[in-house]
């Protein structure tokens, strides 16, 4: 990282890069293993239990053949002597071992599902919480599609590992260990041959590890791209249709699908070499043991029976190899996914929660900007230098041409972003130190985009106050003049508004968002173009509601339609990130500044 100062793999940076240096590769791999460790750690008790269960069930399964041997060797002669006891005993023992083994395996299946589901749940939750915590800055560039791909296809990869995992791993390792020990006890020389065969095996595994690591990373990137495109198409389906981009999209998507397929096929092909490679090494080892042992038998150095056993043990040692290879393959795939997820989790929110939060139980609603500078990117300041004092209880109308920075100002007050210099305060407390829950309770913003979640109208209004009663919800809807249309919907407040509120009209969406804010009842209310899509009569109703609502609270109303000005105590005119005029509406209208012009032309447009 030090040799390439402009590149880093911190967080999600370089997520799509394909040319990671060794150090970087190690860095993100370590990060992903750490995450895996932290996920597995709380499960260690259950994991130990699961291992014990597998061991016992394996033993009872292994016991089967011995019992059969006993039944035949001892039971048969006894039966010939008319003694049913040993046979019956063997039969019973066999049943018992079978039942125990079966029950334990069943138990283990459930146990391991509990473990893996707990891990997945934990991971899902962590990612969700973290993405919620990350600032808008992050979301703007990262896109929802990629977060969704982290939460879906990446999680699927981990799930595949967990589902197939522990059972094979534990059984396989135990089995190989015991077989190897047995071989050494039987014949040391054959044991060493087996040991020697581990060398090519490790070489092959290392080769697979390096190659697959890279390829699996590529599949993660490819699947994320695919999902991003998919999500965006479905979200903008109307524009897609209206502008006939279906064919072009199909081509683009087809390319992404092909990239994903290609990288998938490559990694599968790699495994298609690795797996038979392991089998081959095992079989060669068997042949070598046979060859060396054969000569020793001829020299008289080895019993023939021992040779047979040694050869069989060698062969058996490699039996679980395929399972182990599959596990390793799954592990590689899962860690690649975890690399990406851990990258997201490693992102620090640029708007961080305070370390020592200051409580503000009751806010008066006094907002101030002190020497604030802000830009979305360092080279393009939006608010070059900004001072503003909004006394508690004042209603401000913020006007100015589009792109002047009004929304930006509002976003700073509601701490979607932090200023790069200076501070924004509420009741004298820097927003960066204020307890988030107090901040959110005190300051609420109705955004320019009226976003509704799928769910009922009531649910959507209740976002303003999750524990609100139905009466409160209805009262809020009534206050903003939304009750009329809501009651006209097929199921009233229980009507599902569909995704993004597609079931209701644009104006109706704004009314619902507005009711939401009404219900939240904050000390500082910011309305960003909250009535832009409303018809004039509804807007008038909203204005009336505002007049009572805003009587005792601070408000910043951003609007291009100057009708809001009538309810404002003070008007701010903003141009290119600066306040160019500031005064009561009457003063400004009476003056000859920008606002009086604006107001005049607006008046003229009215009828």
């Amino acid at each position: 990282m030090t040799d390439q100062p402009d590149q880093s793999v911190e967080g999600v940076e370089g997520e799509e890069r394909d040319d990671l240096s060794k150090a970087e590769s190690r860095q993100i791999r370590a990060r992903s293993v750490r995450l895996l460790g932290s996920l597995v750690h709380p499960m260690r008790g259950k994991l130990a239990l699961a291992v014990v269960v597998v061991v016992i069930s394996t033993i009872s399964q292994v016991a089967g053949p011995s019992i059969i041997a006993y039944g035949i060797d001892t039971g048969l002669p006894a039966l010939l002597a008319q003694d049913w006891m040993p046979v019956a005993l063997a039969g019973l023992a066999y049943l018992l071992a079978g039942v125990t083994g079966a029950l334990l395996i069943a138990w283990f299946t459930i146990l391991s599902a509990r473990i893996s589901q707990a891990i997945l749940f934990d991971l899902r939750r962590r990612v969700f919480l973290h993405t919620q915590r990350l600032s808008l800055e992050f979301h703007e560039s990262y896109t929802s599609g990629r977060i969704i791909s982290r939460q879906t296809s990446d999680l699927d990869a981990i799930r595949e590992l967990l589902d197939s995992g522990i059972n094979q791993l534990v059984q396989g390792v135990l089995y190989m260990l015991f077989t190897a020990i047995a071989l050494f006890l039987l014949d040391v020389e054959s044991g060493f041959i087996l040991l020697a065969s581990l060398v090519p095996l490790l070489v092959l595994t290392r080769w697979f590890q390096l190659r697959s690591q890279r390829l699996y990373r590529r599949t993660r990137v490819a699947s994320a791209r695919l999902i991003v495109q998919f999500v965006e198409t479905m979200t903008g389906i109307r524009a897609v249709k209206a502008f006939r981009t279906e064919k072009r999209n199909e081509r683009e998507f087809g390319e992404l699908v092909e990239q994903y397929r290609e990288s998938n096929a490559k990694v599968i092909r790699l495994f298609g070499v690795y797996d038979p490679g392991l089998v081959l090494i095992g079989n060669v080892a068997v042949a070598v043991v046979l060859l060396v042992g054969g000569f020793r038998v001829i020299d008289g150095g080895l019993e023939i029976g021992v040779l047979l056993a040694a050869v069989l043990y060698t062969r058996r040692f490699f039996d679980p190899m395929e399972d182990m290879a599959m596990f390793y393959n799954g592990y590689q795939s899962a860690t690649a996914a975890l690399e990406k997820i851990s990258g997201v989790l490693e992102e620090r929110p640029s708007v961080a929660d305070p370390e020592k939060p200051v409580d503000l139980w009751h806010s008066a609603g006094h907002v101030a900007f002190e020497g604030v500078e802000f830009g979305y990117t360092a080279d393009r300041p939006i608010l070059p230098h900004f001072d503003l004092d909004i006394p508690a209880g004042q209603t401000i109308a913020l006007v100015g041409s589009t792109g002047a920075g009004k929304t930006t100002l509002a976003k700073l007050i509601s701490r979607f972003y932090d200023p790069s210099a200076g501070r924004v305060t509420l009741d004298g407390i820097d927003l960066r130190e204020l307890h988030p829950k107090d901040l959110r309770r005190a300051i609420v913003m109705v955004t320019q985009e009226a976003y509704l979640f799928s769910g009922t109208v009531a649910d959507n209004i209740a976002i303003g106050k999750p524990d609100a009663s139905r009466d409160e919800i209805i009262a809020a809807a009534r206050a903003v003049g939304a009750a009329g249309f809501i009651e006209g919907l097929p199921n009233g407040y229980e009507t599902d508004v569909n995704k993004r509120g597609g079931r209701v009209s644009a104006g109706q969406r704004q009314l619902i968002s507005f009711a939401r804010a009404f219900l939240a009842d904050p000390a500082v209310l910011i309305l960003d173009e909250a009535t832009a899509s409303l018809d004039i009569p509804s807007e008038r109703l909203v204005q009336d509601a505002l007049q009572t609502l805003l009587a005792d609270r601070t408000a910043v109303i951003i609007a291009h339609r100057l009708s809001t000005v009538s309810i404002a105590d003070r008007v701010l005119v903003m141009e290119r990130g600066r306040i160019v005029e500031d005064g009561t509406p009457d003063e400004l209208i009476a003056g000859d500044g920008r606002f009086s012009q604006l107001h005049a032309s607006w008046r003229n447009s009215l009828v």
Partner: protein
Amino acid sequence: MQNQRDMQNETEPRRAGTVATLARLRPYAAAALPRIYTAMVASLLASLVALAIPQVLQWMVDGPLADGDASQVWVAAGIVLGLGVLEAVLIGLRRALVLTPGTHVESRMRNALYAKLQDLPVTFHDRWPSGQLLSRAVSDLNLIRRWLSFGLVLLVVNVLTLVGGLIILIVMNWVLGLIFAAAALPVIAYGFAFERKYSSVARRSQDQAGDLATSVEESVHGIRVLKAFGRSRYALKRFESQAEELRGTEIEKAKAIAGIWLYLTLIPDLAFGVCLVVGVWLASVGQSSVGELVAFFATGTVLLFPIWSMGYFLAMTLDAKTATLRFFEVMDAPNTIRDPATPATARGGAGELRFDDVHFRYQDSPDAFPDLVDGVTLTVRPGETMALVGLTGSGKSTLTALTTRLYDVTGGAVRLDGVDVRDLTREQLRSRIAMAFEEATLFSKTVRENVLLGRPDASEAELREALDIAQAQFVDELPHGLDTKVGEEGLSLSGGQRQRLALARAIAAKPSVLVLDDPLSALDVDTEALVEAALRRVLATTTALIVAHRPSTVALADRVALLEDGRITAVGTHSELLATSEHYRFVISSLEAETHAASEEVSS
């Protein structure tokens, strides 16, 4: 944020058989099938070789080696090595044969699904949560691929091995063989119960995974709202409860698998126990020999693994089946908005847009409600600009959506130059009518790509012109000018900037009819005036239907149509309507009634 999981349940088709369902994959898998069959053969051969190696070893050790012939040792090792290599090659062959074709099948299905989704009408997308579509396109297809290239092959190989093994056992000793075979009956019976149970749980888990994806998507798309109200915790709680449900379902699934595993391990073991006792008894009465017994049990033991793994493959097959069902739910969805068989030609018309007694109602609208658009008759003459005015929720946007067939009328007809829009292909129609929606709907592409969405081959000058008309000169101040990416949904632009790009996009498409839904709502008074001045030039020659809420937007129009109760109740110039229509005054006027009267007195 609540999900619509019940939606699919309503439409759940009659329970189709597993085989019948999976057989529907055939068109997509056809090219891969020969290789899949070959892979099965390779896989069978590999198992045979694997079985043969121990036998050969035994034979070698007993025979040549016992003779103490050194040259024979080389031969023996050589044969074992040869078999070993053969086994590895066969395994490699199986993988090589199926895995790449499997990925092709997956790609083909994914592309088909995407194409189908783009083709399906907006009504479909209104109803279907996006996570459900995504989970079908990604996880389900992944599952199907894994089943095709892995599950199917091994399932068939396993079944064949089992049948072969059983026959061998019966030939070896028919009494014991039949006892063992009889044990299969309860397993098979349980298998049916398992199929039913597991299928429904698997289906539920896939649906819940889709819902979870929907929640994730909404939590990110709606993050501004969640942040503005400080509701991240609340969203997390809802997400957790959904994830919890999924976890419960997954554990239920594991329990079902545990159930069948229990049967699959227990019953063969029971059968073995009985065989042991009976076998020993048979031997004691001279009906069988010790050697035969040993051989019987040795072979039986070999069958245990395929029996156990049946549980795994069965579950995988059922997962694939429900995934297939989910895939075909989308693929089978009827498309109500299709191109006509013999499209009319409407090239080069002047661009007259006519609504002929148009009726429209949304699909979920209760019967008791009148049609939302209840007999609209309106003609927008070529080159004319018509403003559409009406209250919030009166159906203005709906009416505009009918022009490009985002929805189809339920009665009457929309005509472009006298041709019913349903007689044109969607491509023809939509290249003649361009829309700007009330929400900008930009894509996370560059400014240029966004503006030229409707006409990617437009020249630089045309692009510039469109941007100038929409007063979108701000693009030059963006970090990379026209090549700046606008962020997801254009959210790294200001509201007014987004809206102007959407307007520029409609203009750049150079349509004969422009349909603009409240295109100036996010602009300040000055910019609005500039846009209007520039737009007039375009509108002089282009037919336009413009939804308007403000008198300032209405000023663009030659005539105004008033939408009221689903009908056009008045058409005329702005001042005519002001004078004659009570409702128009109510909708558009912000001045108090007295002022109105006064101003009217003045003007008259």
